[in-house]
């Protein structure tokens, strides 16, 4: 990266200060290449993103969860060790036992939960990526189907099977007994809003927000054309809720104006993974053909494909 020094004078300050400026390549995010067992960068910006070559982290990775900050939490295939990887390399996460079966990353990537199936225990790590704290174990009453963790790491969501077809979302918080947030039959996903303990619950044909302050609220439902929901997430500022459907339709609810915008693509969304920006997401995985991106930061929401790059 080239550096440049410029001088600014703040009127409120009496002395001039010189600061280095720099221009380099833009990194939109990273993505886990399951076939290669490696992390690959998404270079560029949403409108001109290219897939970069695999990052040599020194070991094959078994699974990984990518944060929009340009790093990922991963499990080494050979040792089962939990590591944090980025373009600059790989380092171990102290205190997390080897062999985690799943990783849940908070919306802003500041906290994560490593889940161990055999002990029904999740180890919650906060202060990511630079100041990881001592993992805090949380033991679940039953085997969860999936997890979500809040940005402060204080709250965990567990989706548990309830009978043959039902499912329950439980909130584990502050070491108390879990609270039932929701019972349903077709729960597609759950997520915390960034920087908040408010919870988004996505069902097949409806998305709800369970707010700490105001309780449950409907974000969108069948009457809004919601069907076959794959996932839902909030924008970084929490003002927009993005709902992705299997048909390729994406609905964006503006929580301030209550306006509902839709955009569609000839793709098959399977994910909703954050990239750099307030409302930029990856819609699918590498194994499912070209990557598709959702850009809700542009004047009109749009779906773009990722150009191929080096392998």
């Amino acid at each position, binding site marked *: *990266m*080239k550096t*440049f020094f*410029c001088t*600014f*004078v*703040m*009127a*409120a*300050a*009496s*002395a001039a*200060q*010189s*600061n*280095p*400026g*720099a*221009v*380099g*390549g*833009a*990194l*939109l995010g990273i993505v886990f290449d399951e076939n290669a067992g490696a992390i690959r960068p998404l*270079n*560029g*910006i*949403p*409108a*001109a*993103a*290219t897939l970069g070559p695999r990052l040599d982290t020194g070991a094959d990775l078994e699974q990984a969860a990518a944060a929009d900050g340009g790093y990922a939490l991963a499990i080494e295939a050979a040792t089962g060790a939990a590591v944090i990887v980025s373009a600059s390399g790989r380092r171990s996460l102290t205190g997390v036992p080897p062999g985690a079966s799943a990783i849940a990353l908070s919306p802003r990537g500041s906290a994560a939960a490593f889940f161990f199936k055999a002990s029904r225990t999740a180890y919650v790590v906060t202060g990511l990526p630079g100041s990881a704290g001592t993992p805090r174990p949380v033991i679940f009453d039953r085997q969860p189907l999936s997890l979500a963790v809040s940005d402060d790491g204080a709250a965990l969501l567990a989706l548990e099977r309830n009978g043959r077809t039902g499912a329950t979302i439980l909130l584990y918080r502050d070491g*108390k*007994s879990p*609270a*039932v947030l929701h*019972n349903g039959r077709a729960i597609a996903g759950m997520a915390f809003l960034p920087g908040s303990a408010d919870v988004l619950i996505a069902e097949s044909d409806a998305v709800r927000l369970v707010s700490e302050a105001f309780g449950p609220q409907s974000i969108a439902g069948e009457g809004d054309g919601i069907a076959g929901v794959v996932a839902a997430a909030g924008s970084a500022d929490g003002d927009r809720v993005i709902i992705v459907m299997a048909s390729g339709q994406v609905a964006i609810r503006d929580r301030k104006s209550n306006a509902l915008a839709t955009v569609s693509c*000839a793709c098959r969304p399977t994910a909703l993974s954050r990239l*750099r*920006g*307030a409302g*930029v997401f990856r819609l699918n995985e590498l194994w499912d053909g*070209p990557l598709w991106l959702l850009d809700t*930061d*542009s004047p009109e929401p*749009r*779906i*773009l*494909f*990722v*150009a*191929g*790059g080096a392998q």
Partner: protein
Amino acid sequence: MSARHLSLWTALLLAAPASTLIAQTGTIPPFTCAPSAKAVPVRAEGTTELVADVVISCTGGIPFISDGPPITPTDIQLTFNANVTSRIIGAAGASESLLLLDEPKPGAQFPCDSRTGVCAGIGNGLGTGYYGNGPQTLTAPNNRNMFQGLVNAVTQLTKGSPQTITWPSVPVDPPGQGTRTFRFTNLRLDATSVSSGPLMVSTIRFTTANAPIPLLAANLPIVVAVPQASLVATVRDAASASVASLGVSVPVSLNGATLTRYATLRFAGTFGGADKPRTTAAFINPDVSPAPATQNVPGAAFTSESGFFNPGLGTFGPGGNLGAAGLADAGTRYMAVFSGIPAGFNLYVDLYNSTAASGPTGRLVSTDSNGAGSFVPTIGNGLIAVLPVNGGTAVATWEVLRGGGAADQFDFGVYLAYAAGITTLPPAAGVQMRYAPFPQAASFPLFSGVANTQPLFSFVQPPGVVVAPGALLYSGTAGGRNPASQSLSLVSTVATVPVNFNLISTGSLPIQFQSSSGVTPATIGVTLNTQGMSAGTYRDTITAIAANGSGRTAIPVTLTLNSPPQISSISPPTILVGPTDVTITLNGTNFFPGTVVQWNGTPLSTTFVSLAQLTAQVPASLIAAPNVATVTVVTQDGAQSNSVSVPVGTFTIASINPSTVTAGSPGFNLTITGTGFVSGDGVNVGGSIIQVASVTPTQIVVTIPPNMIAQAGSLPVTVVGPTGLQTNSVNLTVAPLFRLDTISPSEVTATAVSFPLTISGVGFVTGASVKVGSTTLQPASQNGTQITVAVPASLIAGPGSLAVTVTNPGPVVSNALSLTVNPVPGLTGLSPTAGTAGSGAVTLTITGTNLPTGALVQWNRQSLTTTVVSATQITASVPASLMATAGQASITVVTTDSVSSNALTFTVNPAPAITALGPSSASLGGAAFNLTVTGTSLTSGSVVKWNGQNLNTTFVSSTQLTAQVPAGLLASAGNATVGVTTADGVSSNTLRFTINLPPLTGVSVTAPASTSSGQDQNITVTLGVYPVDLVGTVTLTFAGDGGLPDDLAIQFQNQSRVFTFTTPAGTQPAPPQLVVKTGTVAGVITLTTSFTAGGVDVTPPGIVPQRIQVGRAAPSLSSATCTRDTSTITMVIDGFTNTREATQGTFDFQAASGATLGTSELVATVTPLFSAFFGGTSGAGAGGVFRYIQGFTVQGSSTSIASLSVKLGNSAGTSSAVSCRLP
């Protein structure tokens, strides 16, 4: 503390000793207070019982004035004789127990945190109170009049003992002439912490910073609640008609049981209000958690588990959520803990009590082990829920949703269901009924104590069925009548309880019940139908099944069925006609006593000797004349034996067969026919007694050995009876040996040529002659076994058969042999009659008459390999060498004796050749058509071949064929090979047929003439119908504007610069979606399109390359983020500039609230920065994308800046601004 202030408190402190002085002066009324409470009944089992409010009314004292010092903070402490259990809702022990100062109305209730000083208000000199820190007007009262009591908690011991509540720093402003009321509400006490007696306030203290102030000790203690045992829990019968103190009996059926209510659990309160709903809300919908109803009226009588609470108060700093103060988490919860539930039993309970909806209502809310489960919206089928049973234990918890006000009772049904197959009575089950013991974390209400387990179910056996006798035995004879019927008696094990039963037989015996079901007591007849059964011992089982599932009883059934009598022999076997009675003896089996011998159906006087022997007397009247009698034996139950015939007659030989044999013949059977023959008879042949092979009353067969007939002669034959009686004698004649065996040849073809005939045999003697037909011939040569004669041609001139015999002198004539004279063969047909030169070997089929075995087919007198199929058909193989050249051949058939047939002609034709096709070409995908093939030597049956595939062909002439070409052969462009093949497989030369592609129309690829960078640009593709599969290829190229480099991100959505699509033949295809990413570098994108079909380029001339101009434009910024530390701010900007250069950045700063900035905009020259990046290695492949990081140093605090925005300029213009907010 000011003098004014000090004087007041001096007055208070000295109130008691100086009261007289104050009263006398009349200047300072005493500040006096009186506590009171309206005691309420509470549950002795409850640990968080809401007791009565404590109200302290004060008068006197001197109010604080508005311009004076702040009102003095005072700690107020209540001490009880019981442990305080008011819930802690905030920090430092801040509880839900509230002090309401001066009875504020709901709209005027404001929380006060005196610890932060907000309540250290000032007075108004009137004693009407003012405790807030904001402006106070008559129209906007702003009193802070609600204070939280601090309680002692296990982990939060801040004030006092476990039995005290302290309200710290209350601004107590004496009311002067008025009244100041202190209401203490939401007081919860542990009723179990007091062994007996009421719950009381024992002391009340007002304490300033200087010293405690005992207040009105004389009136204390005051009673706030009276604990009473509140719950009576009983097990009742299913209908809840009566108490079942010993539990309920549950009959256990082997058949299992469906859902059945067996018992009722009754939870009854002993006083009104012992059962309480969560709130006083009238809301009763059980499937939705009832919304709390505001209970914010000071002094109201609360009949629910909730006390005073005002949700409008909300969260209040370290005090916690005051809006939830006094609010119970649930209503009274009743719990039933079931134990000893047997494995295999499903346990159910009512979701609601019996008076739900119309009266007191309880609702099942939890089935977990401590009853603290959250409110469960739906359980079970809507009325009844199944309980999870773990190790025989199950738990049900019901919550009171609505109380009746009086001493209520709640009845909940208990049900069981189980599957068939429970064979062992389970031990008794019990139930423990109590209040649900909420854990501390679940808040209110909480209870302690464990009730005793009461009997619930005792499992009993239902009455059974007893059957007598224990076994049934039947006997009889196969083929006889059915055995007699027998009876079963069935009674109940409990005589007073009839039991329905069913009878079934599970084996193979045909058991018939008088009735297969009934009710005890009963007698059921059982019969067996043995008709058609064979002898043997049979066993079966009758099963009596109690319909109530108590069990089943097996009654073994045994049937012994004897074999019918069998006669093996009768002695004597025959009876001679005579005038006296004859005794016969019958030997056999199964002659049981009582069996009778019958003579032609007439019973005889029978004597039982043994099971194997009977004797019977045949009266003379039954044997007076010859006849054959039928003798049988019949049992007592009508079974009949086999029948045996007994002849009654005389003893003579009528004839023998054969009567003559040839000497030297092999042994043979001699059949003697006559009457009166019996077993034991012997045959005398020529003086030797011969063993009899078989005998019937009228026939004897004996085997004559060869040695007995070795010599010619005569042998007398007689039959000798067992008693020595002999029949008449008949002679067997043995004749001398003379025989013809063969003649050679035995067949000849009719012709005019004589031939020698050889006769073989035995017994030829000198002087013998031969006779052929009617002609006698003399031997040409002779010995004892062979004679040769010359047969003249005249005897075989025509077809026929001639008898050949030899006559020895005597004359003795031999047996005759036949000489066959066959006719001459004649040919009538030949197939095929022609072939093609070069076709290879051919098999000829020749039809005709008189085609003899051994005949040969000849081709121009050359013998062929021949197969005689029949006298009318013969086949022959013509080798390929004879078919090599065109010409004709003479075909004949020659017999083994060289007689030739008439001749037929076979033609060998020349090979075909073709010279022209009409037409010689067609369009790809065209319609079917007729193809004319011209040539020479074309024959009928020839086929036109298209790339080796046969076409439907019509023969026109030897120079022309026509063939039908289907449309399917025109699906591929290119050349086809056409030839002709004859019926016998000879192929001509081939000619080429050409298939041409049609022009491609109706296709287009359209792109906009211009667009901007950073887009996914749709390209319009239009397609039409084409008769063959069409492959389209769009190729992208990019040329940077003014020497700008390529941007590798400019691609199609398939991540390539080549996009290929295929449209199937003959259909209107959906146009492919084609998107091109325009990248981030200015230039021209060129799209070149081509189409191929079957590998042939069919791109129409109108398809021209599409050029998309991406013009130079101002930078585009996609995101910006900001971070800061104490004195620096860093901004990270992502975006692109499609000119790959930038000139300057303009930064605008927005001040934080309350801060001001001298300069809000800064401009930076960035040309070298961007030139270095795009001109360097790292920026070479970046297109126009960049990340620009700019830092700032702020003199002063960086927190004075709230956000900043940036615009970036390049040679084409300036971008829109993007901004970021500093965290």
